């Protein structure tokens, strides 16, 4: 075995450049598969992690989300909210008033989304997921406090509003002017990013203040939390029916169960993953052709040597083994290198995504994926080597010896 290995190794070494190029094919193919798998596991995890916290939410908005129905949506009202709260299986329902308004801070002005929400409801909607920014300097360890029931003319602001929009940073107790009225900042929210990056550029005020400054009581969104995620779809349908009845219109409103959206997203994701893997497999097929070609050339060049080996007693299977080993060795080394390159590439992609999109997507390198990658490399090598190796083993000894 060791001598067979040496024999094969020296043959590979003798044509170093060609062997390295062949190996490169396998390296690229395996690295692509490993990187794609690792990144997509990371994406999957970050999607499920972020969305599973919202799985029991139904989002109710006026206007159907179906195509062609955009236009004047109308809006929801208090009666709709009361009716939704009464539906069996609904744990909590929270209404939001939302408008885009002028916000001024130290002479600078931007258009920003103002959300009016009952402070009690804020917990119901965001639960544990959206918190105040940490501040080790303050007594509570947090940057300010949350909105309270009887607050007047105060607001909580998203991370980007505090840090990015205005030249000067906004902190707790600073004052903003919203639509002409002065508001004091009581809390700064933690950076959300990803699927909740909207929160980062919103300003939250109490519902009462919102009604005053926005000059409307129209509800733009109702958030519903259900007791049992399994019933979410049915409850969403019932919500739509009730609200449509209230407004005497078909398709007046749409209630979207986030749990269903997660499933949709996951299945889209599955398709994307298969598609990417298919592309990576093409590179493996190309690599396999490369190995076949190299081994075939090696068989041709060594025809004379094969004849000599047969003349001194090599059986067909001895020759077969040597050439399979040659193809296998190139692909095993290629597979291992491919795994290393794949891991590095996955980490680099993950780093790039964080830097460019600000979304935390880890490269999750699973050991079974690495083992699978090496197994695929070996399989590709042996399958591609099989035809040339058989060709070599079947040569007639005299003719092969005569071949120069």
């Amino acid at each position, binding site marked *: 075995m*060791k*001598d*067979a290995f*040496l*024999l094969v190794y*020296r*043959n590979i070494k*003798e044509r170093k450049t060609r062997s390295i190029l062949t190996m490169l094919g396998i390296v690229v193919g395996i690295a692509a598969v490993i990187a794609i798998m690792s990144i997509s596991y990371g994406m999957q995890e970050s999607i499920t992690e972020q969305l599973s916290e919202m799985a029991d939410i139904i989002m109710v908005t006026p206007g159907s989300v179906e195509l062609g129905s955009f236009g004047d949506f109308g809006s929801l009202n208090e009666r709709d909210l009361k009716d939704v709260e009464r539906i069996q299986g609904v744990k909590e329902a929270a209404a939001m008033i939302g408008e885009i308004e002028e916000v001024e801070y130290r002479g600078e002005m931007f258009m920003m989304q103002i959300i009016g929400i009952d402070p009690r409801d804020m917990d119901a909607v965001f639960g544990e997921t959206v918190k105040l920014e940490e501040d080790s300097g303050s007594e509570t360890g947090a940057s300010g406090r949350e909105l309270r029931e009887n607050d007047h003319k105060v607001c909580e602001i998203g991370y980007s509003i505090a840090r990015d929009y205005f030249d000067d940073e906004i902190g707790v107790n600073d004052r903003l002017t919203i639509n002409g009225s002065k508001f004091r900042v009581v809390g700064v929210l933690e950076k959300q990013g990803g699927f909740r990056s909207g929160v980062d550029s919103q300003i939250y005020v109490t519902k009462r203040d919102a009604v005053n400054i926005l000059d409307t009581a129209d509800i733009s969104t109702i958030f519903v939390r259900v007791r049992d995620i399994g019933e979410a779809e049915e409850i969403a349908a019932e919500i739509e029916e009730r609200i449509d009845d209230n407004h005497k219109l078909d398709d007046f409103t749409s209630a979207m169960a986030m749990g269903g959206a997660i499933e949709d997203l996951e299945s889209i994701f599955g398709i994307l993953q298969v598609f990417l893997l298919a592309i990576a497999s093409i590179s493996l097929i190309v690599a396999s052709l490369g190995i076949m070609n190299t081994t075939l050339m090696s068989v041709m060049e060594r025809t*004379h*040597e094969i004849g*000599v*080996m*047969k*003349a*001194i*007693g*090599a*059986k*067909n299977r*001895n020759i077969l083994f040597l050439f399979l080993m040659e193809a296998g060795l190139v692909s095993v080394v290629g597979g291992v290198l491919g795994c290393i390159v794949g891991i590095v590439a996955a980490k680099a992609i993950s780093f790039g995504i964080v830097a460019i999109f600000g979304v935390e997507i880890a490269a999750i390198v699973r050991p079974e994926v690495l083992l699978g990658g090496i197994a695929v490399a070996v399989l590709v090598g042996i399958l591609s080597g099989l035809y040339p190796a058989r060709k070599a083993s079947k040569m*007639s*000894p*005299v003719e092969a*010896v005569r071949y120069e």
Partner: protein
Amino acid sequence: MIRTENLTKVYRMGEVEVQALRDVNLEIQDGEFIAIIGPSGSGKSTLLNMIGCLDKPTSGAVLIDDINTGKLSENELAEIRREKIGFIFQQFNLIHTLNALENVALPIFFAGVRREKRLKRAEEQLVKVGLEDRIYHKPSEMSGGEQQRVAIARALSNDPEIVIGDEPTGNVDTEAGNAIMDILEGLNREGRTIIVVTHDADIAARAGRTKRMRDGKVLD
């Protein structure tokens, strides 16, 4: 004992047929040293290839120890080549990536013998042909005569009864040729059957018996 019965080999090249061997009947006794001579193209190499189980006859038979080699499978023929016969070529035909020791060990490797035992046996053969100080040399680092002695050591590595040489001295000078013949004579004294093809009358004279070939026939 080696015996050929009406051994015939026809090469077909398109329309043309070449009768390389015509009804050759030859008997070689165990322990004999036989030289085959004859003009180029007379069929000497073809005859050796048949006896050496490298090729199959068109008709007729080669019997080695009363076994008709034409009836054996490829695997069985490979085993005969490996265990019973040692073949020496005019062009040495060593594997150029392997050193002397590894070349000699190769047939023992194909026999599936363990590494240490294999290398020990290979080294003994190299000592026997007087190359104990060339063990780790690559073929390219040796003279023609030395390479041919490595090839002889390789032919001997599985202790064959028959040693076949197709012009083993054809590519070396007279001195190296004589050294090779000395070795072959020694092997013959050990009781092995030696069959060599040669163009050199002096070499042929050292054999116990000489056979002449012409036009695919062995003359009396």
